[in-house]
């Protein structure tokens, strides 16, 4: 170790050790009790990127920069099965399973930890017509704000800095009725009809190109 050049350490994130120490219900055939077992404490980074910037190849969106209230709501929704229970929607299913056993205190810890993550600028992956996108965005601005800053009171998250490929997929999920249909998903049920104003994939691409431009 001494032969390689180890440089100074800089602490950007707090340890989230112990987050996944929740016990697993005893099972008939697999007597599993993971209480106090040394489970991996870096589960999030495997899917969401080494620094929370997201990973399109495994479908994990960026977490860095998410508003704490929104992050908490989504963790709770996944835990309750309001999100992520769609059949054959694998990234959502994976997320649902990952958080199903989190306690309230663990969600508190996670939200606090991720709130401290430094935002890494995302690559833009979508091409489209900026002008058309700007026109279409007028409809979005009502909830998400003119500059994509979000609106907690309406349950509308900020859009700046989110992965465009992730937003594309979510809009498609809303449009096709996979998201925003659960009776307890108040904000999602508002979002679903709004997405119908985007008539085609091209419309979705165009509006995302405009949202990307808010990044600058």
């Amino acid at each position, binding site marked *: *170790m001494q032969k390689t050049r180890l*440089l100074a350490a800089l602490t950007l994130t707090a340890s989230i050790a112990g987050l996944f120490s929740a016990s697993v219900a005893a099972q008939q055939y697999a*007597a599993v009790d993971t209480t106090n077992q040394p489970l991996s404490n870096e589960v999030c980074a495997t899917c969401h990127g080494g620094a929370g910037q*997201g990973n399109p190849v495994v479908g994990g969106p960026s977490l860095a920069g998410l508003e704490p209230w929104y992050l908490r709501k989504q963790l709770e929704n996944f835990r309750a099965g309001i999100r992520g229970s769609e059949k054959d929607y694998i990234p959502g299913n994976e997320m649902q399973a990952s958080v199903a056993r989190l306690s309230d205190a663990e969600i508190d810890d996670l939200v606090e930890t991720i709130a401290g993550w430094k935002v890494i600028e995302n690559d833009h992956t979508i091409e489209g017509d900026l002008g058309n996108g700007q026109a279409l965005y007028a409809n979005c601005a009502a909830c998400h704000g003119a500059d994509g800053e979000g609106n907690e009171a309406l349950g509308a998250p900020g859009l700046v800095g989110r992965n465009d490929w992730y937003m594309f997929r979510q809009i498609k999920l809303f449009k096709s009725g996979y998201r925003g249909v659960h009776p307890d998903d108040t904000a999602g049920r508002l979002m679903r009809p709004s997405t119908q104003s985007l008539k085609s994939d091209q419309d979705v691409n165009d509006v995302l190109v405009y949202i990307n431009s808010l990044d600058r």
Partner: protein
Amino acid sequence: MKKFVSRREILGLIAKAGASGAVLQASNALGIVPDSYVDIPKIPPVDSGNRPSVVVLGAGVGGLTAALELKKAGYSVVVLEAAGRAGGRNMTVRHGDLIDEVGNPQICDFDDEPHMYFNAGPARIPSSHRNVLHYCKELGVELEFFINENKETYIQDDAMLDGKPIKNREFTTNARGFMAEIMAKNFTNAELDQPFDEWEIEALMRSLRRMGDLDEDMIYRGSTRGGYSHGGFLEHGHAHETIALRDLLKSALFSEALSQNEGETGPMLFQPVGGMDQIIKGYLRKLPDEVFYNVMVTSVMLQNEGIEVVYEHKGIKYKIEADYCFNSIPTHLMTGIDNNFSADYKEAMAYPRRGEAYKSAFQAKERFWEKDDIFGGISWTNQPIEQIWYPPHGMYKEKGIILAAYNYGGGMHFTQLTQEERIETAIRQGEKVHPNYRGLVEKGITIAWHRMNHMLGCSARWQKSRRGFTQEEERLFQTLRQPAGNRHYTIGDQMTKHTAWQESAILSAHWAINDMLARKSGSTMPGQRV
């Protein structure tokens, strides 16, 4: 109306499906049984005052091979591993071990005995995998024979014989008998485009008769090769009732049964005594201070001279600089790690699909298979569990670990179930092969490679089509194989044309080291070596 198939068409079909010798030859040409060779990189020893530094990402077979060979030549080596254990997909599960599936962590509760283990990843070493065998020898890993092919095992198909399992020997004896009869009926001089002489015809007929156990009239009327229903030693043996070809054809396993155990899963096969991870332990004995665990890489940056890797350990970030990086992190996870690679390189990194594979295992309360003449090998079923493996080791001990499901190609069926559903499904499906299965097995474990932490996939899938690499896929593969900035090598079985094997991971590491050496030695020439 049934489609009429002419005799010549049948002959063509049989020639395609049955001529295993020819198939094997063709497979060689197509790279299905790839040629492997032992060509350990000859790394010139380095001056102790000026040792090049290498950071290896990932302590699987590929990473450990690179680390070992470079260390032997005097390089300064550090291996960073995200998990709390080395091995990657080389994973043997024993009493107390963590199966770190995202969202479904399990602690294995098998009895704590040396033979009570489960090879959750690679589980057999083909005798043609010379490099794996080379390292087993070098690292002092004791090997024993692994039994893959065993005709005492079962074939079960819901569509055949009302789902009743039958012994593989019954199935294959009958299948081969009928096929030999059909071939014999068709092989007459007049009907073939390419006439054989009488000697050749006779030789062919003789071998067909032997192959299918046909009678003098070249008719298949059953065979004792499928085993006796009773007698055979003190009394005359009575063959099992012949199973009609029509019944056999109802099973999709018909084509499988005659083609299994060819190529890389044919004899001879080996396994390390005490679990596949004995290989990893062998590597680690030679790398006692080099491997660091629970280390998550957060960025990999090429620099003018060297490469910088930032990683996080227990919430603290560190930065490490080295001359070279050998990176075996799965490409689909590397796309989520900050880097400054070229757009082409990133595009190639994002291309391979993450493989789906699923295995599960039970502890058996007794070695019930041994009472059924089974001492290893695989039973096949048309159900999603597909296979049941019986351990070739631990013979006559009280208990054993059996593989309860193995789906290599499309493991998502099980992956999407809860742990309880996975276990119950494995029991219910296993009951169709072994009727009293439920009472005989316990302490099930499941390994859904698509969700294993720090891996999120089994072997990389480069090809979208079974027909082979497209030109575009070849371009992407070659792009990713070239070192980024002459310093960063993507390695592992993912960087071969034959993913999923340990042999591939080793050969990839060797290739990268040899490429590095060639570039170094060529550095006095203007331009770059191509």
